[in-house]
């Protein structure tokens, strides 16, 4: 059993023990007459147990979240420090060597001489013909040539000297067995982020006992460092957790007196617990948004934001190979926005009437018995995984549409078209709209219907003139929510709409959407730092902004509507 599970188990025992101890101590203090206690005995138990468990659990959770990352950065920092120390030592050794210092100062004075000569020569050559002294020029030229030869010689010997010292150090390092880790440190200091990350991931693989992509002595040394640090961190965290729990247990237990307001304290603790949970989810969301924002900024520093938002041409693929001709990548997202809008529009044309009409039928016309059966059946549609809709679109609807339109004379019809993706997405969204509209229609007060019937209106007159207008804001909200769902929908369009970033108004052509492109950009061969990958974040941010806006409007509208009838 791993150390951490042992710690968790011990913590569990402590929590249970804390509950028991808190409870019994409270009862004992009033000699069993529980009515003399401020709170029920259990609250004393809860109080101790919560304090024992909660902070320790937080620590444990923090370890779970950040443990691996901190082991990683600890190891990297250590290796880098080692490499840094080595180079510092190297420079220090050289500086302490009088022979080397001598060489360096010679080099410096030679450089000065050469520079001086060059300036003088230039001055001499600029002089007027009358003042010109060809003899002097000749002399300086020769002087310059010899100084240059000396300078080159000095440079080589300094290089040789440095190499000699370095070799000596390396030999020592090899003898003391630190050569590999120093090489790793240098590598981690000087290589780019991506290669460093690949290197570390290989090291982690070795540490876990898996096979890495290559086996280098550096990797092994890093892996063993990783393992060491991981163990150290884990053991100290484990100890800390248990110590924290024990201290909390003893402290809270000592607080218990008959007049101690355990019930109120438990209430407060519970509140804190609940707040912590909601804050966690909010922070997660903010974190995601921020990281998206950050990466998008990087993208926009390469591709200007107006080129992204208003550009008419999208072809990010080319960035893979740099030797391709005349390809700088085009990141104009308008074709994607247009594709998304067209598919969403088609989906809404299908889903809004059908969903709305079925909602009206279910809530206004259907017998209660039929309703109790039909409503869940319709909602089952919402439970069908979108990938199923996707292959339905790809294998059934797409070919059917192509066959239909080619027979009508549209030769250009293709299997993967905006139309088939939109139609199937519409079907997917029907239950969404019908269920939400059904709710809002049901929320229209019966008194309005009665009023209309009492005026001698028929059922459909009542629906058209009274129920729908009353439910309209809610229906509008439902449609907005459905649109934001459609815009964000990925699987169906990936499978059914194709990949071509065509800027077209023809629904029979294949188009692509924001989500499809995000998938395409982030799967397959990745060039990590390039605008291609980063553009996915910009697309994601756009998507997020649009759907957020829609949802906010929808929720506000629905809320307003609720207020009106509450």
């Amino acid at each position, binding site marked *: 059993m791993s150390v951490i599970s042992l710690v968790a188990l011990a913590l569990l025992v402590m929590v249970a023990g804390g509950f028991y101890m808190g409870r019994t101590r409270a009862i004992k203090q009033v000699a069993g007459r529980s009515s003399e206690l401020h709170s029920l005995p259990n609250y004393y138990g809860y109080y101790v147990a919560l304090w024992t468990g909660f902070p320790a659990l937080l620590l444990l959770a923090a370890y779970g979240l950040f443990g691996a990352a901190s082991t990683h950065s600890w190891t990297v920092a250590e290796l880098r420090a080692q490499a840094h120390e080595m180079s510092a030592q190297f420079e220090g050794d050289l500086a302490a060597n009088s022979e080397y210092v001598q060489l360096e100062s010679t080099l410096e004075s030679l450089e000065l001489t050469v520079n001086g000569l060059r300036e003088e020569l230039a001055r001499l050559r600029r002089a007027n013909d009358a003042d010109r002294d060809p003899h002097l020029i000749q002399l300086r030229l020769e002087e310059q040539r010899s100084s240059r030869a000396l300078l080159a010689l000095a440079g080589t010997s300094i290089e040789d000297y440095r190499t000699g010292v370095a070799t000596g150090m390396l030999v020592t390092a090899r003898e003391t067995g630190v050569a590999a880790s120093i090489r790793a440190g240098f590598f981690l200091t000087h290589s780019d982020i991506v290669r460093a990350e690949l290197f570390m991931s290989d090291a982690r693989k070795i540490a876990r006992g898996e096979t890495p992509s290559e086996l280098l002595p550096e990797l092994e040394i890093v892996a063993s460092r990783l393992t060491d640090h991981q163990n150290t961190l884990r053991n100290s965290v484990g100890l800390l957790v248990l110590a924290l729990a024990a201290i909390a247990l003893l402290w809270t237990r000592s607080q218990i007196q008959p007049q101690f307001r355990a019930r109120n304290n438990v209430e407060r603790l519970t509140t804190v617990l609940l707040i912590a949970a909601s804050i966690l989810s909010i922070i997660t969301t903010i974190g995601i948004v921020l990281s998206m924002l950050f990466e998008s900024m990087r993208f926009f520093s390469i591709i200007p934001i107006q080129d992204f938002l208003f550009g008419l041409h999208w072809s990010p693929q080319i960035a893979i190979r740099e030797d391709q001709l005349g390809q700088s990548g085009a990141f104009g997202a308008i074709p994607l926005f247009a594709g998304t809008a067209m598919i969403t529009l088609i989906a809404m044309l299908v889903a809004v009437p059908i969903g709305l009409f079925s909602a009206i039928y279910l809530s206004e016309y259907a017998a*209660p018995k039929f309703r109790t059966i039909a409503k869940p059946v319709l909602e089952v549609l919402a439970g069908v995984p979108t990938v199923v809709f996707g292959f339905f679109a790809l294998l059934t609807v797409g070919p059917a549409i192509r066959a239909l339109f080619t027979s009508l004379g549209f030769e250009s019809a293709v299997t993967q078209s905006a139309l088939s993706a939109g139609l199937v997405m519409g079907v997917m969204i029907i239950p969404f709209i019908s269920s939400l509209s059904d709710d809002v229609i049901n929320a229209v*007060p019966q*008194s*309005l*219907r*009665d*009023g*209309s*019937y*009492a*005026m*001698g*209106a*028929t059922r459909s*007159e009542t629906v058209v*003139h*009274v129920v729908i*207008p*009353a439910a309209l804001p809610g229906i509008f909200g439902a449609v907005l929510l459905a649109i934001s769902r459609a815009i964000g929908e990925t699987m169906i369009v990936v499978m059914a709409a194709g990949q071509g970033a065509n800027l077209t108004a023809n629904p029979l052509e294949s188009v692509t959407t924001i989500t499809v492109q995000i998938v395409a950009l982030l799967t397959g061969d990745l060039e990590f730092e390039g605008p291609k990958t980063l553009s996915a974040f910009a697309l994601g941010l756009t998507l997020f902004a649009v759907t957020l806006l829609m949802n906010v409007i929808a929720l506000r509208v629905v809320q307003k509507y609720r207020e*009106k009838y509450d």
Partner: protein
Amino acid sequence: MTTAQAQATLYHDIPEARDVKVAIAGVDVHYGDKQALFDVSMQIPDRSVTAFIGPSGCGKSTFLRCVNRMNDTIDGAVVTGSLKIDGTEINDKTIDPVVLRASVGMVFQKPNPFPKSIYDNVAYGPKIHGLAATREELDGIVEQSLVKAGLWGEVSDRLTDPGTSLSGGQQQRLVIARAIAVNPEVILMDEPCSALDPIATAKVEELIDELRENYCIIMVTHSMAQAARVSQMTAFFHLGNLVEYGPTEEIFTNPRERRTQDYITGRFG
């Protein structure tokens, strides 16, 4: 038949000089297995206000809904017996309740203006029944109805505002205007003032008193004082039975039934 019912049926003669508008004979109402009204018979005069009183759950609203067949909209409600308006049987398959309701208006306990403008609320009935051929005619109907409902002065300059923007008392007069816009013969009112403050109540009562000139008004009320103030005839219901029915003065000053006496004097209810 119990003695009470016998007496009630005996005592449904109408004061002279008033025509019978609604004649009810042997009406039973069931909600599923539960019987809510037992063999009710009475004759309701035209151009007067008839008040239904009685403790909660005794079947007043149920009975009121028989007159415009609103019970049809309730699942499981079954009405049997005879209901005649001007001698025409209305509790009959061949009568279209939608048509019937155009001549029997109804005002509910809680004001329920439609989510439309004040104008469109009043124009609702005339529009669906095609009562106005031109816009001018419709304008005329709306204005007349609002005038009759005593609301014109208050809303004439804001006809396009939503009906829900009015005060509760104004809303109730708006729905009365809506009801009279289709020129009904009978107006049913189910506790029309119970959601209103005393001043709004006084206005609505005044309105009811004026409308009496032209319509047959049947209203349910929980206020003895209101029944005494505005009605000419009063019917007392108890546990689904019509206990006593007669001119309001007699019911209030000289009830024949002990139960009526007890209820009016507040000894139960």
